[in-house]
Structure formats: structure tokens, C-alpha cells
């Protein structure tokens, strides 16, 4: 095996190796008459300006290992930034809107409002989008984390502050809510008063919680009735 062939073999061994190879291991695999050091130097210089380089890794004072590695200066081209557009689930959108309007709000409170448990991924997705962040802890048993929206959230929706979010009346005026005649309106106004109060002081908020609890029972009842109607 001539020197040219030896270089080729060395190159192939280094390429196929699953981790940096120690010189001792290389020597075992190369012909016994090979000038390993000289070959390694030559191979290294062949690759000096290339996209792939032969690196020496000093394992101890007397022992080196060698491996091919892609050139450092190309590393920025070796990673791809890919924009993946994801669709938000309905649960995620609703959760986000509740956090926006009710912040700071705990997970349990969100579940109360929506009337269903939050699946694990829902908050994760909102976190991934960096639209929500933990705000602090509620001073109640268990000290649950409260959540609020981020600057990124405001950016995305082009808002200056969360106070710019339209209130219920504005939503209705812009046709976003189904309008309900008479009685519904009164109830809405009253419950809204309760909600608006909740933003700052905690006591109101707790009052609201109680209301929400009742509400949930009723809501279930309504749903039951609906089910029955459907079964008919």
C-alpha cells in the first residue's frame, strides 16, 4: 500500500468512525509501516481550507484523537431557521382571551370560566408563542401561579395596553357578540360590573369566583337539558 492509498484509508477510517479515534486505534488499523503522524498532518493540511476539517483532540499529554468536523465558520449556515405556522386550538384561543381579560388569573380560575379542564398542551402553546407569562402567586391556599399577557402579546395584536381591549358593550356594538334581548342584557351588565371590579382588588375577585361556581352548576344543567332535547 503506497502513501497515497494510506492517506485514502486514513481518510475513510476517520470518516466512518463513530467518535474521535485515538492515534493508537488508528495505528492498529493502518499498515504497520505507515507514518501515521506524517499522514495525519498531510490529511489535515489537505482539508485546511475546506468545508470539513480534520481536528486533533488532545486527550492527554501523550495522546491525541482525531475527527472530521465541519468548519466553524459555516456553522451559521448549518442551522436552518424555519418558520412553522401553527394553528391554535379553540381551547388555546379561549384560554388566551380569558388570560387577557382576567389577568392575573390562575389556571383553576381559567378552568372555572371555561367550565372544562385545561389540557396540558394548551398553556404550553401560549407560552411557546410567548403571549403569556407567570405573573406571581395568588395569596390563597396552594399559592397558585397567576398568569398574564406579555409585551409580545400586545405587539402581536397591535395594542398599547391590555386596557385597550374592548369591553363587552363595545364587543356587542361591533357585532362580535350575539345580542340578547331584554333580560339577557340586564344580566350581562350586572355580571360585567362584577368582572370589571375584579381587575384590581382581590376581594371582588373572590366574590366573582363564588358566582362562577354557581354559574357552572347552572351551565351544566342547561347543557343537560340540551342533551335531552337532542336525544328527542
Amino acid at each position, binding site marked *: 500500500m503506497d502513501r497515497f492509498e494510506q492517506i485514502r484509508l486514513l481518510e475513510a477510517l476517520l470518516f466512518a468512525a463513530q467518535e474521535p479515534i485515538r492515534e493508537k486505534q488508528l495505528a492498529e488499523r493502518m499498515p504497520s509501516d505507515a507514518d501515521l503522524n506524517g499522514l495525519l498532518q498531510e490529511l489535515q493540511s489537505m482539508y485546511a481550507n475546506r468545508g470539513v476539517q480534520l481536528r486533533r483532540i488532545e486527550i492527554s499529554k501523550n495522546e491525541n484523537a482525531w475527527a472530521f468536523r465541519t468548519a466553524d465558520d459555516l456553522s451559521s449556515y448549518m442551522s436552518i431557521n424555519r418558520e412553522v405556522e401553527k394553528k391554535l386550538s379553540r381551547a388555546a384561543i379561549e384560554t388566551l382571551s380569558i388570560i387577557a381579560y382576567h389577568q392575573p388569573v390562575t389556571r383553576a380560575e381559567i378552568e372555572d370560566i371555561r367550565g372544562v379542564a385545561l389540557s396540558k398542551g394548551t398553556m404550553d402553546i401560549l407560552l411557546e408563542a410567548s403571549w403569556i407569562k407567570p405573573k406571581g402567586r395568588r395569596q390563597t391556599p396552594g399559592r397558585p401561579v397567576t398568569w398574564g399577557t406579555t409585551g409580545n402579546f400586545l405587539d402581536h395584536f397591535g395594542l398599547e395596553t391590555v386596557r385597550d381591549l374592548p369591553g363587552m358593550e363595545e364587543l356587542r356594538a361591533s357585532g362580535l357578540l350575539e345580542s340578547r334581548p331584554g333580560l339577557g342584557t340586564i344580566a350581562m351588565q350586572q355580571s360585567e360590573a362584577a368582572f370589571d371590579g375584579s381587575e384590581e382588588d382581590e376581594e371582588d375577585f373572590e366574590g366573582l369566583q363564588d*358566582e362562577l361556581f354557581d354559574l357552572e352548576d347552572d351551565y351544566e344543567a342547561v347543557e343537560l337539558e340540551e342533551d335531552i332535547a337532542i336525544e328527542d
Partner: protein
Amino acid sequence: MDLQEDFNSEFEEDDVPAGRSPADLLFLALDGYEGPIDLLLSLARDQKVDLAKISIVALADQYLEFISRVRQLRLEVAADYLVMAAWLAYLKSRLLLPEQPSDEDEESPEDLAARLAFQLRRLEAMQKASKELMAIPRIGQDFYRRGDPEAIKVENTSTFDLSLYDLLKAYGSIRDKMTASTLRIMPTELYSMDDAIERLRDMLGGRRVPNWSSLETFLPDDLKDTLVVRSATAATFAASLELAREGLLEIRQNGIFAPIFFRSNPDAPEPEVDDVEEEDLARVDSLLADLEVD
């Protein structure tokens, strides 16, 4: 495949290796074939002639003899091999018999033989190709991929397509859901007819209001919301009809859309004293003081 070759060559040899009975060999031999065509092909190879020129009759004889030897040894023979034996016997008989006037549809025995020959050549070619394919350099055996690949990092940036409109609509629908049920927890804010009946009964019962007083004066005075006032008015009016029916009060209206007046029915029975509470009496007294009697 090498294993198979070994069986075949062993079988061809006249010298049976020590410790193995011919029956074993036959059994192993048949077991090692990949179906009747493969067996035929092996037998054909034994003729050591070009497959294109092979004698199908001779081959059929060999095959039938082979199968009968195996069966004499009471060895299991798969149905495929027996089917082929039957077919070859049939083909052979047709090849040997003088040609009979036959249906046009029927494939001539020569054509069938040609098909068999083609089949054998084709399988032989594929078996040869298999061997060659397995002999060419293969990855992980003769040449290698990169042993220590470097990951090309893919950084996913998720973007979420959500408009403010979607967000608000979602919140609106949650609130709608909530308000739909709020009706049940806040009904006291509206003035019910039951409340009005109770209130009127207290105020007008027992001849307590002998003079005509307008409906408005019987409304609770702490109502602010105009809708609640309207509901109280309606409830009170409806209640007055009920109480008039019971004979507790009288109603008067001077014209369409004119004010409505109530007074206690003078013929109604006296109330029992302990029915009337001090507070109510005081209230009625103050009311009476304010009354402008028509």
C-alpha cells in the same frame, strides 16, 4: 442460498455422506427448494445443457421420478409439488401423443413447453441476479456512511396565525355562554309578580288604604334601573288584578293610558291584628300622609 447450494450438490453426489440416510437427504432437499419451479430448475441444471434447448419431456420424467421417490419414503410433499407433478404428467402425455385436432383456444403443448422453458430461464436469471446483487459492495459491509454525523440544526420558530378579531370573538362567545346561564342566578333583580302580590297584600289588605292611591306609590322606592322599574310596574299591575279578584282591593282608571289607582276594598274582612307588623303599619301611615286623594 449457499446452504441451498450445498444441499443440491450433496444430493447430486453418489456418495452419501456418512451418518445420513438417503431419506434424510431427500427430505432436506425438498425442504430446501423454493417451490416446484425451483426444484425443476435444479433438476434442469443437472442436465447440464442450455436451458433454451432443454428436453421438457426428459425434465418432466426426472421431476416425476423425484417426487415418487420422495413419496415412496413416505415424506410429506407440499401440494404445490404434487400439482406440478400432475401438470407435467399431463404436458408430457400431450407432447408425446400425435397431435389431435383441437379447439383453437387450446394452447398447444409446444407453447406450454415453451412457457415452462421461459419460466425456468427467467427464474434462473433472477437467481443469478440475486447472487450478484448480494455480492456487490454494500453499505456497512464494504463501504460506510459518516460514522459521527453532525446534526444540521433546524430551529423552528413557531408563528401563530391569530387575529385580534379571533381573540375577541372567542372571549365574546365565552361570555355569551356565561350570561346565558346568569339569568338564573340574578332573577331577583327583576320584580316578580309573587313579590308584588305579597307587597300589595301587605299594603292594601285589611282596609288599610281606604283612599284611591296611584299605582306608582305602591312600588318599592329603591328602584333605579328603568327596566326594573318597568318590571315592577307590570308586576304590581298584574298583582292588583289578582288581588281585585280575591276582593282585597279595587282598581280605578279614568281613561285610556290614564293613571291607575288602587284602594283597599272597604267590604274586605278586617285583618287579624297580629298579621300586621308595627313596621308595616308605620310605613302605611307615612304613605297615607303623603297621599293625594283624587
